[in-house]
């Protein structure tokens, strides 16, 4: 058995004393991906709602792109969980026979609510008029595809469109707390595990939420720039600057919260502090201190800051935004890694560490890689079928 072979390889790498059942690290790369992906969904959606609910007209060019990005990632959000289950064929028990006081049991409902009641409806109402038009102008298979998507509602009178707009707005208003719920809730899954001092903090949901917004905004920023370049279109600098400013502000809040959590831990120095500080200085040095804090947070925040305070030229700003968004996405991934994997490296005896080696996890690494790139293909298909570009639609 593959797992047993891997555990035998890990056995000599154990440092100090850990409970014998703790050699296997149970939530690995796949479960790192899960909060990362749901975070991108929530963040992208919140950026979209800025345009719609808060009337931030500057980010309008990315409104539909944000929605489609959220959808592309939401569609795969459950895959890492499913792939990780010991009995994936029993996954639907979570829906059919949920245990209501389990944090995890509620995820299915929160997810379904968000996908079905919020995101799909909002996209449908926003695109409905386009579906009707495309079903008339397109040919062949595409024509039928759009015809089906209209769901037989072909009224595009001014009154009908106004109603679409109203309903769409209402859904977005419901959608914002839903997006908060979706990701804050993912934070709660970790934050409510009292057995684990690295996870157990009431700040966890809010930190997850803030970092979700950071990653989602950075993702849409990057996708917007890349798609404009690929389509040889001009980047709307007003839009990009506004997104950059939001990214900067939320990132500062996110980082402050994380540092608050860290300072709190250091100052209180509870029973678990010795092992946790040792972990941060050794096992997590590269992924947390270097990857997450330095390269993934301080550098992008500084780059964004430079572009604002020194009013860099558009060409330079684009470069700064481009680099910042990539570093931000890496930084938030590192953050998810440090939370999920870090929380399992140290023993609950607080006397030692197990290890997690990507080269030893075998198939999980390939499955995770496939799940990580899948949303990009889905997004490409969505962009092809539901072009979100302003200049062509309006």
């Amino acid at each position: 058995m593959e797992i047993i072979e891997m555990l035998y390889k890990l056995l000599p790498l154990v440092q100090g004393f850990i409970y014998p059942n703790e050699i296997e690290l149970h939530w690995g790369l796949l479960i790192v991906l899960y909060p990362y992906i749901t975070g991108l969904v929530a963040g992208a959606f919140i950026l979209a709602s800025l345009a719609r609910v808060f009337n931030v007209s500057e980010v309008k060019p990315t409104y539909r792109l944000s929605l489609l990005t959220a959808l592309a990632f939401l569609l795969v959000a459950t895959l890492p969980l499913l792939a990780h289950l010991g009995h994936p064929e029993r996954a639907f028990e979570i829906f059919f026979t949920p245990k209501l006081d389990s944090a995890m049991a509620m995820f299915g409902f929160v997810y379904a609510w968000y996908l079905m009641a919020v995101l799909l409806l909002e996209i449908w109402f926003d695109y409905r008029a386009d579906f009707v038009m495309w079903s008339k102008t397109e040919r062949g298979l595409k024509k039928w595809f759009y015809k089906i998507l209209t769901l037989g509602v072909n009224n595009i009178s001014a009154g009908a469109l106004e109603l679409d707009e109203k309903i769409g707005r209402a859904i977005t208003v419901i959608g914002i707390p839903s997006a908060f719920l979706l990701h804050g809730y993912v934070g709660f899954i970790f934050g409510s595990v009292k057995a684990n001092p690295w996870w157990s903090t009431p700040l966890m949901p809010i930190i997850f939420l803030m970092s979700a917004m950071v990653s989602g905004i950075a993702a849409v920023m990057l996708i917007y720039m890349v798609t404009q370049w690929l389509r040889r279109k001009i980047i709307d600098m007003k839009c990009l600057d506004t997104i950059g400013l939001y990214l900067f502000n939320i990132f500062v809040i996110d980082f402050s919260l994380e540092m608050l959590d860290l300072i709190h831990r250091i100052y209180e120095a509870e029973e678990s502090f010795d092992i946790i500080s040792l972990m941060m200085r050794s096992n997590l040095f590269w992924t947390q201190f270097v990857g997450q804090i330095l390269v993934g947070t301080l550098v992008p925040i500084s780059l964004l800051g430079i572009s604002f305070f020194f009013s860099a030229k558009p060409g330079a700003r684009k470069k700064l935004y481009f680099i910042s968004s990539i570093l931000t996405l890496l930084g938030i991934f590192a953050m998810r890694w440090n939370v999920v994997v870090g929380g399992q490296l140290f023993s609950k005896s607080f006397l030692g560490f197990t290890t997690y080696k990507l080269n030893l996890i075998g198939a999980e690494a390939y499955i995770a890689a496939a799940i990580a790139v899948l949303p990009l293909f889905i997004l490409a298909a969505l962009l092809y079928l539901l072009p979100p570009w302003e200049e062509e639609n309006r």
Partner: protein
Amino acid sequence: MADMNNLSRREFLGLSLKSIMALMALGFPKKLLAMTGLDGYKMEEHLWGYGIDVDKCIGCGRCVDACKVENNVPDEPFFFRTWVERYAERKGEKVEVDSPNGGRDGFPDLKNKKELVKSFFVPKICNHCEHPPCVQVCPVGATYKSPDGVVLVDPGYCIGCRYCIQACPYGARYLHPKKHVADKCTFCYQRITKGLEPACVQACPTKTRIFGNLKDGNSPINKFIKAKKVLVLKPDLGTRPKIFYSGIDKEVR
């Protein structure tokens, strides 16, 4: 009795029917009894508790072995329903803890014995908490606390999400490598409901492990709790363990 070699159809059917009825009369009611608890075991009259007298443990590991054999726990040194830890404190040094193969094969000799301040063994097992965090987090209710206070897993229902393993503060759970479901100590439920002791208790040569019904004032566990000053592990987490330790030191978690 009809001649067995020349049965008529009527005789054959009659005999078959009688045989089935006889089998049912013998077997079926027993099953029924077991299902209703009428075979003698009354769940509501029991609340199982467990004591560990650390001063008596010699680290022989018979309990770990007995558990693995009785419950078909995978042999590899990564899966334990119970295990034994050794604590060794030397002059001016941090306490050293080990548990090679869960203590199943006993322990190798300690080095630098002259420097040794003290050393002792601590058997570990699922705490069958009154407020089990593993039960709280299970998304489908596959792990549950039975009315007699035993925390169990339904292997036909567990989806293998491992949330319970994360939630257990004591490292008492593992994912079964073949069944792909969470697995843990059951107090040998198959034995205790028949009036037997758990395998680890029976195998212990020094009576380190004490087991019994907390609802029975004269049970060994109640006598142990009355006679000794007992502690539970990680009481600050509010899990209310039902494994009571006598003689553990400050380093034990």
